[in-house]
């Protein structure tokens, strides 16, 4: 069978801003080599020229869909170095914002998953419902997407009272919507036929390759940084980690749906148990003593970690950002083998890969 080399370029409706070099025999992909780097901005180098506050809007940029998830580990690392304890109410608000961001990012995931399958309704519904949660985040943090809301020492402003009942209305509405999603997307016979058994990542490979996030949990490994390496107040909240042993594209989408339900129950718990009190320590100056710290957080796409080295100066000495998309990038050659060309976009998007976040 003659081999056809096809480069699914940075400008292709089926892939993000990165290129995958496919060698096809007929319609089947034999080999896929990812070629990232088209949106590399040198975040780590630029972070060495900004002080600890100026870095916050800067480091949120790559993970644009999940801004709280991006900045949470940075803030934890700085607080770990400064040895300060953040007030209780700020911890709760941070968790609420992180879970809201998870739902927003998962909805975007479902939308693009749908349009890559040619299912225009599956694009429109999640994007429409995403507005509900973006509006909620807007009332809390004052911004719609990149909040710059978490700072070392707490959160920037308090949560207005009306968020409680607005969140309840949003969650009740969205629970009903998830059932509709299941009917029209997940249990749609054609959707199942196209995604079940496609893009298999067996469990040993998932562990060996250090995969993170829903892709890992879809391959049967029950690991979530919120439960394993608990940070902030996640140990006081009870929620389950959805796991599926099917290791295929369908289960990755299913995990995202389940996680949205868990996030909503977390938000409800936090809103019930949030204490009163200050939301930020009054740090006149951010003085970070020399040292290094490694902190990681379960962002929407997986475990996002920061390795922060400070030499006591105003600017960090070295910031190493390890994003979930970069760690999932290694699965592309494995899951693309034997997949048909038509299934390349859903399989590629199944591992929730965001090129901007991977290139930093």
């Amino acid at each position, binding site marked *: 069978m003659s081999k056809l080399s096809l480069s699914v370029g940075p400008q292709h409706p089926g892939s993000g801003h990165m290129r995958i070099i496919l060698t096809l025999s007929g319609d089947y992909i034999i080999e896929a080599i990812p070629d990232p780097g088209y949106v590399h901005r040198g975040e780590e180098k630029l972070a060495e*020229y*900004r*002080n600890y*506050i*100026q*870095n*916050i*809007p*800067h480091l949120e940029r790559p993970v644009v869909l999940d801004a709280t998830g991006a900045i949470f580990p940075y803030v934890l690392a700085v607080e770990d170095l400064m040895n300060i304890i953040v007030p209780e109410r700020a911890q709760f608000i941070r968790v609420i914002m992180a879970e809201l961001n998870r739902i927003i990012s998962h909805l975007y995931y479902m939308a693009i998953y749908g349009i890559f399958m040619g299912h225009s*309704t599956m694009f429109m*519904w999640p994007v*429409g*419902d995403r*507005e*509900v949660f973006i*509006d909620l985040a*807007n*009332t*809390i943090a*004052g*911004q719609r997407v*990149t909040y*710059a809301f978490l700072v070392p020492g707490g959160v*920037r*402003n*308090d*949560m*207005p009272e009306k968020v409680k009942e607005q969140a309840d*209305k*949003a969650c009740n*509405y969205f629970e*009903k919507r998830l059932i*509709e999603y299941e*009917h*029209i997307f997940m*249990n*749609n*016979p054609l959707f*199942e036929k196209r995604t079940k058994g496609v893009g298999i990542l067996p469990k040993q490979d998932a562990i060996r390759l250090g995969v993170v996030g829903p892709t890992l949990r879809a391959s049967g490994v029950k690991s979530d940084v919120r439960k394993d390496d608990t940070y902030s107040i996640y140990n006081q909240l009870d929620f389950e980690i959805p796991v599926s042993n099917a290791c295929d594209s369908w289960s990755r989408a299913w995990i995202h749906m389940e996680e949205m339900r868990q996030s909503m129950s977390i938000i409800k718990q936090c809103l019930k148990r949030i204490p009163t009190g*200050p*939301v*930020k*320590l*009054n*740090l*006149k100056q951010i003085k970070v003593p020399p040292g290094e710290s490694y902190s990681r957080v379960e962002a929407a796409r997986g475990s996002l970690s920061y390795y922060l080295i400070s030499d006591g100066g105003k600017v960090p000495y070295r910031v190493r950002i390890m994003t979930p998309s970069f760690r999932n990038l290694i699965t592309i050659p494995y899951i693309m083998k034997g997949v048909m060309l038509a299934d390349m976009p859903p399989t590629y998007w199944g591992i929730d890969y965001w090129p901007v976040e991977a290139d930093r």
Partner: protein
Amino acid sequence: MVFIIKLLSSIISGMNQVFKRRMTFRYPDQRLFIEGDGYKYDPKTGIGINGYRGRHILYLEKCTGCSLCVMMCQGISQAIEMKNLPNKQITVNKKSMFPQIDYSKCVYCGFCVDACPFEALFETNEYELVSYDRESLLFTPEQLAIPPKKRPEPTVNLKYGDSDVYHG
């Protein structure tokens, strides 16, 4: 047979949506209502006051020209510079230097508001800053001092029906 049942259930759920209200609203005719009057910062307690982070508002009488906001924005997007307004004689501001903000660069992070110790710079909930060229996005201090005009009717915001969401 299961194929047909599942197909029917997804058709029904699709058809249900047809009888619900639309989520989108017609922007130029209807505008999104954002309550409150923007993000403020209280330097004494060091905590911000909740609000939408839109176009800034500058209280010229409180501004001392200390350019702390310029230094903060230097590392973020270099959107603020100081501008001399000779005709403005303010007691606290001898050199009468006031910040001007270039909205083609500003990322609305609001850290300049946190950096201002004199509560001279806050943010309003004005988000309609569309222009045909970059130069007109450079807001001089006088422009920043003018509070934004009230958003024209009809304003809509997100409302929850029993099983649908609409902008009413």
